């Protein structure tokens, strides 16, 4: 869980930094997107780097879901009879929404790939002009896309808040002072990533990016 999660988080950081290039203008953003395809040349043929990264991410996602499924099945088996009186959450709310939050994120990732990678569900869907795809995606009349995007990113924020702390704990974080630092770091990291991802659609929605 922790190791695959960290791989995915590293991608999330790079992806967010790439997204933020949209504020440097259409030309710079498109140039960045094209550069991604040429990354690693001339050692690699154009596009190879992206496929290597996609393979690593796919393996990480599958291993992450696999481990989560094992944990969920073990949890279900460990309590065959449920409590009649369901208690309120006493630990962290984020920790209790990891599984359903993860499902929302998975559905979103599938939609997101169909939307902005393959362009199938995008109103423009032109791979050579990613900036236009993004602007068309979050146009005010397509408010439901922005809404779904926001929901998914907020779920991701919750997922990261517990996930980051939990990964550090699984890898051996062991002191009380370290726990306070790890929890603070997880919260700040989750908020920064959530804000970093949400600022793009809302900039398009409000006409800041056009």
């Amino acid at each position, binding site marked *: 869980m922790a190791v695959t999660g960290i791989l995915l988080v590293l991608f999330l950081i790079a992806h967010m930094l790439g997204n933020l290039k949209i504020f440097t203008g259409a030309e710079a953003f498109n140039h960045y997107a094209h550069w991604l395809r040429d990354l690693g040349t001339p050692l690699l043929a154009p596009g190879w780097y992206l496929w290597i990264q996609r393979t690593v991410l796919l393996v990480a996602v599958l291993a992450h879901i696999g481990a989560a499924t094992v*944990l969920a099945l073990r*949890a279900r088996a460990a*309590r065959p009879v449920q409590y009649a009186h369901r208690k309120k959450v006493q630990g962290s709310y984020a920790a209790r929404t990891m599984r359903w939050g993860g499902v929302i994120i998975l559905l979103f990732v599938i939609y997101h790939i169909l939307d902005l990678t393959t362009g199938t569900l995008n109103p423009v869907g032109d791979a050579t002009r990613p900036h236009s795809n993004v602007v068309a995606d979050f146009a005010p009349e397509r408010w439901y896309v922005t809404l779904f995007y926001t929901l998914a990113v907020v779920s991701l924020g919750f997922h990261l808040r517990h996930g980051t702390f939990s990964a550090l704990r*699984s890898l*051996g974080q*062991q*002191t009380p002072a370290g726990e306070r630092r790890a929890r603070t770091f997880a919260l700040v990291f989750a908020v920064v990533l959530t804000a970093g991802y949400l600022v793009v659609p809302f900039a398009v929605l409000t006409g800041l990016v056009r």
Partner: protein
Amino acid sequence: MNLTLRIWRQKGPEDKGRMVTYKVDDVSPDMSFLEMLDVLNERLILQGEEPVAFDHDCREGICGMCGLMINGNAHGPQRGTTACQLHMRQFSDGDTIDIEPWRARAFPVIKDLVVNRNAFDKIIAAGGYITAPTGSAPEAHATPVAKADADAAFESAACIGCGACVAACPNGSGMLFTAAKVTQLSLLPQGQPERYTRVIGMVDAHDEAGFGGCTNAGECTAVCPKGIPLNTIGRLNRDYLAATAKRGGTPGS
């Protein structure tokens, strides 16, 4: 105080079980929760009914026998308190209180509110001890222990094995118990020779007993009557990682 109790009644391990409603009148706010159940049981006996079976022993919060899910809280609403030390002043006149046994596959119900916690004994038997010659107590200063380590080990050693951590865990995991029993020894010099076989053996015994896996949700530490901190599990994780690297996963000691 007049209370309505909804209590889990189950004749034996094979019985399906159900929640049964009882009225208890004239409860003193100074009674402990178990005394309130005693009052109910005395009345049930006089009426010729089967009294409610529940575990208890010392009634001063140190033996770990009692354990009730009270309104969905392990050991009731007061933090850092066992059910026997919980007083009825925590409730109000006219309250309805739901009382259930610990729910876990590894803790099968024996009768009513009594569960079998042998699974914890199996975890202890898999490494929760040190191999040392016994006899008269050694001189206390013969083996120096850093104060911080002694304090942390003592914090873990406060675990009374009541099972509230398992009962509260959304995954039905017994990792806080296992971590407490591992770290109370691994932090001290006497626990070093078996440190790495201990952690692997005890985690394996934990998984084998049918407990769920830990996801660091933190519900366990919130209900622990002894306040065993969640970072105890981090100490176990670190020992486990070191052990798998050192011993290649050799189980048991």
